[in-house]
């Protein structure tokens, strides 16, 4: 037992090093006064200054965050009610076909989603830009929210709802006081997954964004194709710190929320 756990630690450490090395590599060279990612000359903040003085880049950053937050929020709302709709569906075969349809966008290759949305938007006349990007992000985030919420709903004992109804709770009460608190962990995970999907998406956005609107991914792609710019490195540094802060916040929220919920779930 001792031996395997030591081996396990080394293995895990190796995986963690490989996972984080490229990120720290980028951040390290963001402080390099020489213009390359090969030899470190001396420490400088100039690349960070370049990010903050580049208003176009800042606008793109803000756009990306707005699209991510909005799309995750809307997708979570639609997805939660979608999951409720699926769970309360009586017809079993209909339910399973809806579930298959739900999963189509999750397993669909990004390129196919992007291409088909491009055709869709051109056909119904949505102007390519902020609207098309936001709608696409909502569209591909909904199924993941459903998938995160559904297991929680299935875990829930239906007699909880019956009990609430017997005790005189209205339908709204049942939803907000019984169902929602019970599935809250699933909703949170779904929201964060949707956020991740949106922030990470490149392919779909690349297809449906017009000339006027760019997200960070698409901008970095065109920058990286042009060659190495340490501004991208500085951007990585900023994004990494923000991500870390978000994750720490998320961890503490989920830890605090866990105790009462955990007790309920584990029986």
């Amino acid at each position, binding site marked *: 037992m001792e031996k395997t756990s030591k081996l396990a630690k080394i293995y895990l450490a190796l995986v963690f090093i490989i996972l984080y090395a*490229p990120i720290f590599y980028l951040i390290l060279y963001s402080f390099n006064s020489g213009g390359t990612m090969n030899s470190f000359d001396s420490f400088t903040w100039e690349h960070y200054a370049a990010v903050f003085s580049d208003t176009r880049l800042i606008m793109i950053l803000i756009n990306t965050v707005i699209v991510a937050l909005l799309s995750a929020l809307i997708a979570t709302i639609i997805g939660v009610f979608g999951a409720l709709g699926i769970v309360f569906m009586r017809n079993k075969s209909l339910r399973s076909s809806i579930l298959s349809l739900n999963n189509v966008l999750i397993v669909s290759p990004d390129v196919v989603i992007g291409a088909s949305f491009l055709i869709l938007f051109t056909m119904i006349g949505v102007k390519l830009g902020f609207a098309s990007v936001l709608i696409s992000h909502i569209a591909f985030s909904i199924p993941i929210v459903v998938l995160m919420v559904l297991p929680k709903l299935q875990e829930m004992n239906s007699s909880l709802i019956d009990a609430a109804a017997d005790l005189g709770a209205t339908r709204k009460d049942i939803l907000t006081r019984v169902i929602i608190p019970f599935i809250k962990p699933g909703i949170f995970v779904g929201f964060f997954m949707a956020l991740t999907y949106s922030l990470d998406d490149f392919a779909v956005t690349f297809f449906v964004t017009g000339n006027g609107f760019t997200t960070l991914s698409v901008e970095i792609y065109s920058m990286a194709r042009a060659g190495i710019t340490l501004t991208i490195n500085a951007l990585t540094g900023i994004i990494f710190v923000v991500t870390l802060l978000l994750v720490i916040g998320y961890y503490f929220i989920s830890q605090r929320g866990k105790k009462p919920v955990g007790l309920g779930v584990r029986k």
Partner: protein
Amino acid sequence: MQNKNSKSIYSVPYFVWILLFVIAPIALIAYYSFLDLSGNFTLDNYKNFFTSVYLKLTLSSFWYAFLITLFSLIIAYPTAYFLTKTKHKQLWLLLIIIPSWINLLLKTYAFIGIFGLSGPINAFLQVFGISEQQILFTDFSFIFVSVYIFIPFMILPIFNSLDKLNPSLIDASQDLGASSWTTFSKVIFPLTINGVKAGVQAVFIPSLSLFMITRLIAGNKVITLGTAIEQQFLVTQNWGMGSTIAVFLIIFMVIIMIITGQREKGATSYGKNK
């Protein structure tokens, strides 16, 4: 009855979403695959697809996706397994997920520097007297970077299924005299196969359609189905041919989904029994 109706009103946006963004796009892709450049009905796109150029492309695309999935699984399964054994496993899992929050383009960009001719890998090799190697723009770099990108998506579902596994089953297996390998192959792996399948789904299908990494890391040397679609849609502007390739990609996707499909009944009943 009233209860049911009011609930279905709230789920209307969801069903509208299915209609507009799941069914309609697939129908549109299928429709466009029968159109030529000037919008007339044609079967030429399908004829073109069955020429050696596209068949070769499909095969190589599958081969790369297979390799990427295989390596991801080999690395991810032990990682997920060891993670479930750690003390603060949720925290460690979070640390695995954090890199997947860093924009995918940034991570790919990092490898342009790392694998570059005067990058750290080459500098490291030179210590051992190995001369500068062209790592960037090779199959190796393409597969390495892809595996790197996809690994968290493979770890997550496997971790979840391992975490749900009832530990007394493992104890029972060991008490009954099974070796660790037997316990793994007869108890742990079969019970977590759904997680593995979900992970394979999450890696294999995106691997078929990668186009950004092929451009940045493989330097147009590797052409996947995704690269071909992107080319047809955004460069050549031949939406018909692009849609035809997309139709085949969807067909492949459905086949993969059927193969890796989870038997829902088994999964839920297991969950409930616990």
